[in-house]
């Protein structure tokens, strides 16, 4: 791995993103629009809105970054630029961490805008500080990036890549404790829920909602999600082959 190549790769990905104004607008505006919908669904600010909006601040970046990354990486594979890069001194981590860094920067902007809207426009209240919410939201974005990079290896077309959303993302949303509290789930469902990374991200966010100071449960959640990011990136690196049939 080389610092300059990693930074050049991140810069290149951000430059590609910059030329795609519509995607930038979607990245920034869509979470705010969805918060607006939630706000009116729950008849304005209040405890129920607080609970759901807080979890949503973690789910939006995860879903959006998963989609953006899996398509971007698939384009890299199908355009031949990936094969070309693998014949150059660029190492696999340069590429994967380059993607992680570039979309991590995009996620920072997205998370900051969504949180600003949630706290200032929609009057979200949390016991803990907003920076922890943004931090966990960005970590979730990285989880989306890492899983997106991994899943793109198993898709040949953009149609197939999009199909990983219902397969990989939606079960995590259903089981993360947003719809049914995990304690009320059947034993096997609760167990399944515990092995899905998004569950731990949501738990960490809920801890920030309930406690003014970071708690041990929050740090455990953050640690598990961080571990999953590293694991998924490692597996994604294993799917990048310099030699192919």
């Amino acid at each position, binding site marked *: 791995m080389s610092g300059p190549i990693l930074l050049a790769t991140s810069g290149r990905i951000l430059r590609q993103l910059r030329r795609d104004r519509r995607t930038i607008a979607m990245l920034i505006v869509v979470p705010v629009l969805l918060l607006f919908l939630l706000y009116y669904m729950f008849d304005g600010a209040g405890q129920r809105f607080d609970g759901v909006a807080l979890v949503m601040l973690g789910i939006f970046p995860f879903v959006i970054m998963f989609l953006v990354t899996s398509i971007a990486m698939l384009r890299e594979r199908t355009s031949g*630029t990936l*094969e070309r890069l693998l014949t*150059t001194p660029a190492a696999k981590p340069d590429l994967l961490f380059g993607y992680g860094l570039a979309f991590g920067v995009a996620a920072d902007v997205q998370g900051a805008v969504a949180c600003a809207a949630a706290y200032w426009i929609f009057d979200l209240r949390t016991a803990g500080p907003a920076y922890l919410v943004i931090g966990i939201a960005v970590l979730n974005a990285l989880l989306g990036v890492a899983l997106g990079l991994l899943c793109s290896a198993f898709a040949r077309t953009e149609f197939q890549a999009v199909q990983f959303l219902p397969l990989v993302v939606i079960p995590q949303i259903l089981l993360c404790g947003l719809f049914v509290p995990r304690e009320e789930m059947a034993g096997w469902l609760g167990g399944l829920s515990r092995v899905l990374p998004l569950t731990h991200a949501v738990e960490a966010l809920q801890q920030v909602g309930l406690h003014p100071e970071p708690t041990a449960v929050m740090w455990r959640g953050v640690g598990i999600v961080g571990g999953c990011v590293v694991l998924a990136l490692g597996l994604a690196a294993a799917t990048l082959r310099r030699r192919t049939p």
Partner: protein
Amino acid sequence: MATHSSEINGPDVNDPAINGPAINGPAIEVDRLTVRRGGRTVLDGIGFSCPPGSITGLLGPSGSGKTTLIRALVGVQIITDGTVTMLGMPAGSAALRSRVGYVTQSPSVYSDLSVAENVRYFAAVFGLGTAEADRAIDDVGLSTAARQVTGSLSGGQRSRVSLACALVARPEVLILDEPTVGQDPLLREDLWDRFHTEAAGGTTVIVSSHVMDEANRCDRLLLLREGTIIADGTPADILSRAGTDSMDEAFLSLIRHSMAGGRSTDEVTS
């Protein structure tokens, strides 16, 4: 006479004083290379070698194995048997990655970036700066289009962006898969001049093509059909062997001859 002509025509490509330290032995050496894919034999025990600073044309009908051979030379093809040695190392070795340039058949560049952004990115990957990138853009005649988004360019211009991304590293071996497809005759001429300039500087060039009138611009030709080399020699050898003065006719005749069954004894020796 020979010394005179080399003085008149510029640098002698075989002169180590001009090329820097000579590579011991051939720049490219392929021995009994076999590639099977999905039960089909794509390359069937082929062998050849290329001296440093030479331009070798890889010709053959589509499906003859040209692209597979090129991918094996670059080291991205899983091979079934045989060896591919580049600059004295097994193809695909880490040490070769900044010394071997590869240009794929369809331009592998970022269509949503400008010409300059593409070439500068690949320059950065090779540890080079913007000056080298700008030089490579100039080398392929795209200086005036440098700020344009690559996706808005013509197909021919896009493949020149792809070429610039390889030339920027000043590779010792340049491997080009159909680089002149979609180029108008004038640009094709410019590209061939570029390849000859690179070769005169000591770069070993392999060019695949199915445009036979380009064959005359190579030092040496390999004609591939169904994964075997059915002719190997200089353009003059190939023409005299086929008894014609048109490359098109020569290839048709050699291909028909090989289909008639005499392919193992078909090597033209130069």
